[in-house]
């Protein structure tokens, strides 16, 4: 019961208070912000969440091994970077090859988003944050899943904003990317009112 509670609390924190897009700017690139339909966004978000979750599942025990080695004082941090990247690559390869071999219909849709969704700053960033905060196993998983879901919700919100802004008379040079960034910025200001202090990076 305690474990579930811990998991849920960390996940909610990662979704709302430490939302990857609105408070850290992770995962905000043009590919993600200009996805053209909610279905694509959901696919993108699901891939992102899956990759983050499974690779943090892989990386956490290895990172723990790394932490116990006393001899690596300075290089530990750098080895952690490499470890996270290797785990991400492994999960990506497994996902890509498995779906290509056994689920060709899913693979057809997945191929459009899988590159930018798995080699994504949100995936790497959330894992590294969880490791540098030295969360436990359950907390790390919760954080990884939460930041994936948070990213998805953020993109959905941005998509809704885009729909609303299509009705507005936006000045010509602001159309497209700038107005989206401004929209995220002002929402980020509102979220800052809830946090009120600096986040750990």
């Amino acid at each position, binding site marked *: 019961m305690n474990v579930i509670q811990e998991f849920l609390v960390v996940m909610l924190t990662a979704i709302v208070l430490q939302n990857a897009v609105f408070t850290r*700017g992770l995962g905000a*690139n043009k590919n993600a912000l200009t996805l053209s339909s909610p279905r694509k966004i959901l696919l993108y978000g699901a891939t992102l969440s899956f990759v983050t979750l499974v690779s943090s599942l892989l990386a956490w025990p290895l990172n723990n091994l790394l932490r116990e080695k006393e001899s690596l004082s300075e290089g530990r941090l750098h080895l952690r*970077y490499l470890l996270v990247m290797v785990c991400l690559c492994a999960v*990506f390869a497994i996902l890509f090859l498995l779906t290509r071999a056994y689920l060709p219909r899913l693979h057809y849709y997945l191929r459009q988003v899988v*590159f930018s969704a798995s*080699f994504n700053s949100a995936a790497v960033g959330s894992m590294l944050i969880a490791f540098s905060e030295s969360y436990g196993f359950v907390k790390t998983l919760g954080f990884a899943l939460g930041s994936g879901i948070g990213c998805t919700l953020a993109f959905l919100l941005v998509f809704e904003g885009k729909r609303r802004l299509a009705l507005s008379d936006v000045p010509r040079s602001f159309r497209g990317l*700038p107005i989206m960034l401004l929209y995220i910025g*002002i929402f980020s200001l509102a979220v800052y009112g809830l946090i009120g202090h600096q986040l750990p990076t």
Partner: protein
Amino acid sequence: MKLEKLRERKKHSRWLEGIFSKNPVFVKGLALPFAIMITTNLKNAVALSIIFACVLIPTVLLASLTGKYLPRWLSMMVYSLFAMALVIASIPLIQPISPEIGDSLGIYIPIVAVNAVLQMLCLRYSEKNFSPTIMALTDAVTYSIGFCLALCLIAALREYFGSGTLWGISVQLPVRLSGLQVAFSGFILTAFFSAFFRFVKRFLLCLTYRRLSRHAEGTAPL
């Protein structure tokens, strides 16, 4: 229509497109996390630009050399791992700027290995039967310069008005907008710069077009 001539002009400016006309941050909207989050002071921006250049140029070179022989899914993994190794190798380069720079950049250093500019350029140059290596090198260099310019522009503004310092040296200012140090102003400033760049780009394009057409009218009597 004088669009042919315009296109020709564009071909000439192809060599420097990464700096202004296709600036990776302001016009293309790639690598936004860096532009938004770490630009609270100039030192961060310069340090990250150094790492960015050190990672981008060799990786794109590798992509243009080996892209023909690898399938796409494998190439992405290879480039990302290579980029991460380069990130780790280039961290000592930024230590002279300030001893605590590594801490203040935090997770944004390793994220350079998966940024969208890198992926875009790698994809472009790892395709079969695509342009020569020299073009890849030029693009990598110009995109790094464009990225550095964009970051320094935002960072200088945010540091000057936000904390009243520039490169760590305090500047006398009557009013300090400390809100500029918070993440949301990164979004807002990037948006405004982006809009400004688009406006200037469009303005220049119109100007060139008009001049060309006037020129054509002048030379052709009938």
